[in-house]
């Protein structure tokens, strides 16, 4: 084979691969993006029926004081963003940093206007506050931590 046609073959192969991976990337970005909402946002969306109940979303906020209820493995608690709140139901072990007025992020779906979580994350960072939650609190003027 001539070097030129060889180079063409390699180029063709590379472009096919690139196309294929672009397709995979776009397809899975579309399917696997998880949107984040604050309790205020999500309640608005529920009221106006804008939410796709089959899709996983994340919500975040501070765990409301005196709202944690445990019945065996089933745990329920409310999270708030200083304006509105939503009930979260979860089956499983809570993360180590879970406590009242602690910023958490929950992954799950909306069920009967409550949030049914499959995963609860409390960030193990030096400030113990997920970024989404601190941004949200700053926006609502409820941020009590250090100001950057």
């Amino acid at each position: 084979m001539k070097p030129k046609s060889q180079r063409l073959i390699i180029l063709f192969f590379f472009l096919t691969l690139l196309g294929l991976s672009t397709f995979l990337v776009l397809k899975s970005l579309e399917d696997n993006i998880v949107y984040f909402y604050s309790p205020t946002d999500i309640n608005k969306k529920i009221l106006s029926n804008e939410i796709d109940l089959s899709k996983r979303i994340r919500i975040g906020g501070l765990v409301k004081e005196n709202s944690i209820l445990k019945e065996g493995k089933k745990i329920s608690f409310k999270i708030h963003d200083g304006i509105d709140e939503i009930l979260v139901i979860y089956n499983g072990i809570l993360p180590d940093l879970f406590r009242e007025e602690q910023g958490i992020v929950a992954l799950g779906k909306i069920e009967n206007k409550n949030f049914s979580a499959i995963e609860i994350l409390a960030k193990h960072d030096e400030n113990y506050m997920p970024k989404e939650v601190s941004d949200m609190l700053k926006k609502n003027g409820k941020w009590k931590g250090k100001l950057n």
Partner: protein
Amino acid sequence: MEGEIELIYEIGHISIIIASFLSLLSTGVFAFHFFREYYFFSTLIKNFSKIGFFFVLISFLILEYAFINSEFSLDLVVNNSHTTKPLIYKISGLWGNHEGSILLWILILSFFTYLIAKSKSIKSSQFHITVLGIQNIILFLFCIFLLFTSNPFSRNIDPPLEGFGLNPLLQDPGLAFHPPMLYIGYVGLSVSFSFAIAILLNKKVEFDWFNYLKPWTLLTWAFLTSGIALGSWWAYYELGWGGWWFWDPVENASLMPWLISTALIHSITVTQKNNQFYNWTILLAIFGFSFSLLGTFIVRSGLLTSVHAFASDPTRGVFILIILALSTLIPLLIYGFKNTHRIDTKYFIFSKETGLLLNNIFLITSTITILIGTLYPLILETITGSKISVGAAYYNATFSPIMIPFIIIMAFAPFLGWTKTPKKSLLRNMLIIFTLAFVSSFIIFKFNTTSVFGIICGYLSILLFFSVGFTFFKKLQNLKTLPLNYYGMLVAHLGLAIFLFGVTGEQFFKKESSSQIKINEVIAIGDYSVKLENVKNFKIDNYLSETGLFKITKAENFVGKIKSEQRFYPVEKTKTTEAGIFNFILSDIYITMGEGNLKEGWVVKAYFNPLVKCLWFGAFIMAIGGILSLLSKANRRYI
């Protein structure tokens, strides 16, 4: 006495300032040598680099002294240490925070610069000056970064009696050594970068110079491999989530440079062998360092949400972003303008070159998919304001499919010859190992899984085992004449086979169950049953512990006892989970215990993780392969 201690920190601070001046002077020498060439330039820049390292070392040791003695007149020590902390965590407390970790970065960088300055293998003084010049520019930028945005010696005018402590999750032997290892890897990429730029800046391509890239890239790669493995192992036993890789931005930040340096090693090999791919090798070396800076940026800027622990500060992010932009754009400009060399060499489709070309294409494609997944949330938030996250599902759908052909080619590659391969023997060899792998993977895994990926992954790991074994078998007659770097290659590939074996077990044959159990109740997991025997409370060193004692049985036969712990650290007001792990040779039973009490019981989560140890063991073997290759005669000559 008080005054003396105060003075020592001034010395620490001034040492860094002197080091940054020395690196600036070196940069000046480097710049000047383009106009005039004096024979003493090379001696000058070498000595500046060597002396600079000692000043950085002094500064580092002084800070370490402050941490060990809990000197609370330094802000950094107050914020990150505590008198009750065990000694090892006082030492590692230095790099458990931003300022200290940047100082560690600078220490490693200047140590590498020192080693290059000392190197006797570099014959061309022009080349030596250029490499040291570029190393010193990077060093200077980082010193400035440290002094202006993250001074570790900033003083606390009113020293408290006690510090705030270190995040308990970081008080762990695995994590004490994880950052230094990863940093050696990250910083090592700067050396490959400097060598590549020096090759680029020269008037004509000196192919011999590519040899200098190899040992440093191997060193980088071996340390990145073990650093990442150590981090993943820590996440596995310390976070209590039962997983070992979460596709978190911070993890991706370390995986991307790893993939690039893997590609770089393979690309240099081709350049060394027959002068091909040299443009590509240079580009990879440039991007390798960009990715290591991008990693630092992602970790330090706090722009991306990560589950891992780091203090963040946007101004620091901006500074690193500037270094990142400079060190990517300027080299690319030089590359664009200077690089007009083109040598036409014969190229054959059925050759090792093609194998290694494909290796690079797949590695780079997979790096790009990870890059997109990591940065996409950031880009979307900037443009539309909506907050999103890209989860593991994205990477499973993009990264994993790319890895399938990658591994198949990896299994092929040892049978390909340089430039030409007899097709008949290639086909015969491949047929043998494909069939052998097919039969044995069915025997080993029995494939009672519904996951197609599980079947493929298991098959690929066995295929790779056979490929390595068969290559070894074919070379049996002349084992003694084989160079050490060939063994290194085989060992590293074997490591990946072991790793994939672990992935198959852990991802596709894992069992998990959780329930709330009281004392003497049982939770079943696979063939095993786990009984909660007792729960005890202790007070140890700097934490309180609630320990559950569990007994594991299999069909009424006693297997073992393990304990799982919840720790409370009063100083930091934090809880951590110490998972109970029962070790079989390759598999684990993994138990975490949540909150609870005698009346209602405790929420217990149990996993059976088959072959999970192969993950870290495999990575460790890979790193050993890298080191073996580094120690080979061919590479040692160029250190």
